[in-house]
């Protein structure tokens, strides 16, 4: 297999293409535009379709249609562009359209900033559009994972007939690392569930739609909640480092998890017993990882690039508030390791007030 040094965003695009993506529609927005640019020439090369939509709204709905007709289809965005896609994504969910969306997070509210952030967490994992649903959410922390997750995303979406979100961030998207390229997957878009025209006498015509017309709503609801329960049980993924004897456990995903892991390594050399849980799926949240925390643990610290410590509430739920929980929320900055270690030291010494959940 070949190895290339490329950007996280490019890896994400290439991973999707190699995973069978043959339709991409998107709209330029920093810091994810490399995905769109890569797709603009790459889809042509592989016989797929690239459309630069007139807006994020148009793009997300193009993906709905392309996927409803069977093609592996995706879109991507960031910040306010990701907000614009939420209505369309909710339609994917209710119609059971297994499409993929990537959000390369930037920091800020509204237009915000074009620099990296991790403050789309709530929007990403708590629904985002109307109605109660969660997207299966994968969080890469390296260029290789951008590629691998995009490569796998369609099969994961098709397994559950449910959309998948890849929640990257501006740092992971813009940085360059060596990346191993897997083989191209073949995919037949003539799937049994896809709309491709039904002649009279060929059987029931297909209607790819939300729940309101053709199925009893209680029946639909029961099926959906059952599917959500199964995903919650089966798809939790995480990585853990040194948590068995840790006095303080860091919890971080994406770029913050890279800093957290390095912090654990440095601290351990100094005899400070830190550990790390890195959620790989943000929904379902890897609650199982938290079952292993030893009862003497003095605190759990989320490290995340937002103001309010958005992930903290999921940690508190995962441990049923049995441990003191803190957020080291660094807003638009990637935290330096010494700051992380110093904060954890203060937690160990009982010098930090527990962080409130907003």
């Amino acid at each position, binding site marked *: 297999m070949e190895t290339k040094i490329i950007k996280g965003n490019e890896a994400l695009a290439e991973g999707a293409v190699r995973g069978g993506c*043959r339709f991409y529609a998107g709209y330029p927005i920093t810091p994810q535009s490399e995905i769109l640019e890569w797709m603009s020439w790459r889809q042509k090369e592989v016989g797929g379709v690239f459309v630069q939509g007139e807006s994020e709204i148009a793009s997300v709905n193009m993906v709905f*249609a392309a996927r409803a007709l069977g093609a592996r289809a995706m879109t991507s965005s960031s910040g306010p562009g990701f907000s614009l896609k939420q209505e369309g994504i909710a339609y994917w969910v209710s119609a059971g359209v297994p499409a993929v969306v990537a959000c390369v997070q930037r920091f800020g509210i509204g237009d915000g900033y074009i620099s990296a952030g991790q403050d789309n967490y709530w929007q990403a994992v708590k629904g985002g559009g109307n109605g109660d649903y969660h997207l299966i959410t994968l969080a890469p922390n390296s260029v290789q994972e951008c590629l691998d997750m995009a490569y796998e995303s369609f099969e994961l979406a098709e397994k559950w007939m449910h959309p998948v979100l890849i929640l990257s961030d501006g740092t992971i998207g813009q940085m360059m690392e060596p990346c191993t390229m897997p083989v191209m997957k073949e995919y037949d878009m003539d799937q049994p569930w896809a709309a491709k025209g039904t002649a009279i006498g060929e059987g029931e015509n297909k209607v790819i739609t939300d729940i309101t017309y053709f199925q009893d709503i209680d029946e639909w609801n029961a099926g959906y909640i059952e599917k959500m329960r199964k995903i919650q049980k089966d798809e939790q993924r995480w990585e853990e480092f040194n948590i068995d004897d840790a006095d303080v456990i860091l919890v971080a995903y994406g770029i913050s998890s890279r800093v957290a892991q390095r912090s654990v390594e440095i601290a351990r050399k100094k005899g400070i017993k830190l550990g790390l849980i890195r959620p790989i799926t943000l929904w379902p949240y890897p609650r199982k990882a938290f079952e292993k925390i030893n009862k003497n643990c003095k605190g759990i610290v989320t490290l995340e690039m937002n103001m309010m410590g958005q992930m903290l509430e999921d940690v508190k739920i995962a441990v049923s508030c049995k441990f003191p929980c803190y957020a080291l929320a660094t807003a638009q900055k990637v935290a330096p390791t010494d700051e992380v270690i110093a904060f954890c030291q203060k937690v160990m010494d009982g010098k930090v007030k527990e962080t409130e959940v907003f």
Partner: protein
Amino acid sequence: MSNRSKKAPKIMKCENKFCAGCGHSLFDRILGEVLTEMNIIGETIVCSDIGCNHMFQYSMAVDVIVPPHGKMGAALTAQKRVRPDKYAITIAGDGGAYAIGLAETVAAATRNENVTMFVMNNTLYAMTGGQAAPTTQLGQISASTPKGRTEKDHGLDFDVFNVMRNLDIAYLARTSVANPSEIRKTKNAVKKAIEKQRDNKGFSLVEVLVPCPTNWGLKPVDAMKRIENELMVRYEMGEIIDK
């Protein structure tokens, strides 16, 4: 008197659920006949709008996808790009195609996508109870223009011909269902629009003036008269682009 009634084609699988005197059911029957006569039901995927128009799904046996309200221009684009061998057609409402989905409608036309839009113009939002649409006429009373539409408060009404007449598209026409002659013209226009797609000529749009007796507060016959006496006078009718 000879019985000249025609049996509905098989694509019309059951009775429709539209209000008495609604124009949508007339249009759906016309489209059903054209798809049947062209023998392309199995090659057609209809993109639904959301509104009264979407109720064709109950009574027509054809593959359907339902994106959000108004987004048919985008969805049709993707349909045709991923399956160029299938017909990408929408039955849209005037609110969907000209208000919330105007960007998508015009963008698809500007790109001259090889797709077909049929837009039902009943001069208001029918399903939600008769609020003003871009097509609501000056002076027309609606649920959200209780004293009548005025230029000062609501702006001028929308005419798709003014927006599209200079675009490089394959077909643009306006017809109605107000009388048998107009119904024949509508059927011809529907067929022609789909033939443009078959022949890879590009974007086609047919606006059909349809009555909404329920929200117009008129009896069905009077609603048809309103189309003949008011709307067909106010609007330019017929084909203005035919390439």
